[in-house]
């Protein structure tokens, strides 16, 4: 009994963690080679990166600010991938969420308390993102159109839509860089560490959602249905599951979660909408989800890891001159290590070594 429990803990927790560590280490070493090629001491570069991410209370707050959208989009990716759907449209759903937050946040809410307003706006944002993800979800479930392709195309459409909003109907008159006016104060998300720090309540919402999704995955019927659909349509139909409905649910919920990341940016970080509301948080979300092998609790860890990289990257660029794009390279390399190690693990499993 205890032996099998030990084995279970080892198999489900420590081994994945070890693989994750190897992936990250490998990507860092490869990054170090690149830094060397640029003619900079990698240790110095990484030290300045760490200092940039943790150097002050403000730096730590900024690092967590970056973790928030990555965590939320990571969870969004994992939710869809439970049914083996690759939601590459999370970036676009984030933009739609940001647009919805700006629209809703500019309404006058009368005497409603802030808590209720934030809840209402969150709900509206979730629905907007969900509806936007309904397009790839429906097309995949009913017509078998690749959700990867439609999701990606819709990213461009969403970004153009937000650019239209801030240059047109939502533009703050005479703003130099086109932006919307600030959203109503009651619709803004609380800055937990005080007004000078942008760290806001949606980080905690993200952590809560991670726990909730963990429970949904492993303890509910929906989680089970998602998993069966992910294992194969034939099996799912055999089990009496309505495959198209589950696929659509997977995409809609995923889109809703991704949209919340947009509300976090508009309501917590900036207070207004701008055309470049996200520097590709959705793609970071994709990477952290795969890095955590789709485990919602693991995504908390992996998104924090990438937020440290992002948070320190600008300091690294300023002090030692290594371009911030190094982080994007590490992003790609981490994914390669993840898929490469997965194949190695399969090989070991076959030889019954693991």
């Amino acid at each position: 009994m205890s032996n099998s429990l030990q084995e279970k803990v080892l198999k489900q927790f420590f081994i994945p963690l070890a693989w994750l560590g190897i992936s990250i280490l490998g990507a860092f070493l490869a990054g170090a080679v690149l830094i060397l090629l640029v003619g900079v001491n990698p240790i110095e570069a990484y030290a300045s990166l760490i200092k940039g991410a943790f150097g002050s209370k403000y730096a730590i707050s900024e690092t967590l600010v970056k973790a928030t959208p990555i965590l939320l989009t990571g969870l969004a990716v994992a939710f869809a991938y439970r049914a083996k759907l690759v939601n590459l449209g999370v970036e676009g759903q984030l933009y739609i969420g940001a647009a919805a937050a700006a629209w809703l946040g500019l309404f006058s809410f009368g005497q409603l308390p802030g808590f209720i307003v934030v809840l209402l706006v969150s709900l509206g944002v979730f629905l907007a993102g969900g509806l936007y993800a309904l397009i790839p979800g429906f097309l995949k479930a009913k017509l078998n159109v690749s959700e990867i392709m439609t999701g990606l195309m819709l990213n461009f459409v969403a970004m153009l839509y937000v650019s239209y909003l801030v240059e047109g109907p939502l533009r703050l008159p005479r703003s130099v860089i086109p932006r919307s006016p600030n959203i109503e104060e009651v619709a803004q998300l609380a800055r937990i560490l005080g007004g000078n720090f942008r760290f806001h309540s949606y980080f905690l919402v993200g952590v809560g959602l991670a726990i909730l999704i963990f429970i949904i995955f492993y303890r509910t019927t929906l989680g089970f249905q998602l998993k069966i659909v992910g294992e194969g349509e034939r099996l799912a139909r055999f089990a009496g599951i309505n495959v198209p409905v589950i696929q659509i649910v997977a995409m809609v919920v995923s889109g809703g979660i991704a949209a919340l990341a947009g509300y976090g940016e508009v309501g917590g970080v900036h207070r207004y909408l701008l055309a470049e509301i996200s520097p590709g948080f959705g793609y970071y979300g994709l990477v952290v989800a795969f890095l955590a092998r789709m485990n919602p609790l693991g995504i908390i860890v992996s998104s924090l890891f990438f937020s440290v990289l992002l948070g320190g990257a600008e300091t690294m660029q300023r002090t030692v001159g290594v371009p911030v794009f190094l982080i994007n390279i590490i992003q790609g390399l981490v994914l390669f290590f993840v898929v490469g190690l997965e194949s190695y693990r399969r090989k070991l499993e076959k030889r019954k070594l693991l």
Partner: protein
Amino acid sequence: MGVIDAAVVITILAAAVRIATPLIFVSLGEIITEKSGVLNLGVEGIMLMGAISGFYTAYTFDDLWLGMLAGVLVGIIFGAFHAYFCIFLRTDQTITGISLWILGLGLSSFIYRIAFSGYFVRPRISTFPRISFPILHEIPWIGPIFFNHNILVYLGFFAVPIVWWLINKTEFGLKIQAVGEHPKAADTFGINVQKIRFFSVVIGGAFAGAGGAFIPIGSLGSFVDNMTQGRGFIAIAIVIFSRWNPLFAVLGALLFGTMSAMGTRFQVMGIDIAHQALLALPYIATIAALVMFNLSKKGKRGGAPGSLAVPYEKE
């Protein structure tokens, strides 16, 4: 409507042909790759690597052809990288392709920053000059639209029948199709499945690199972060609804070229539609085309190679 006369239509269609060219390069390569049973979703990343290496080489050595060659070589290297993971490590081809894209996205901008640090003005190169095709360029409509372009555009269109011939009429092409349809059967006939697939992916990479290098060298004259703007993915969509046929792929590429050209042209002309709506046209049209394709075949994978994205393991 007075504003839109024959001259404007010709300008738009001529621009469409130029914009279609990189899409043609990339989709031709992707057809070869997919025919062999491997999916390369990473062509967007390869295009970006082709664009930066092509631009950097052309700028440094002041030689446009050398730039194109660099783009192709880097495409080959990245194609081989993808092939190694998908064919020999048998990784998930979707995720591997996405990894390749993200890697190319970051690496291209990184290299640009390193290579051109300290430049205050965006470095530019002069692109290939236009060559008016003798006699043909005088044909009304057809002439100015198709026969007044730079050499790379002609090369792109010229490659179409060549690739069709390669796939359908040569021994190598038939082997590609065999390993893409029934790798096991091909194997029993003594065809080295993994080798054929490897070369097919590498050739696809070369085409994607050329398509990427075309954008700075044959069209824009400079490098911009993420300058491909999803064209690699549009090329993959074109492959799908052209049913893996190079001849149809050209039509798809021209359709999207026209959409993009209309967007930019109407914006210049100040037509009263939000320019964002026009810029969104090619992406929406891509989705519409995919939907129409799947509707026509009732969701079946019409024309797709039988073993697309399925790794092969010799027993």
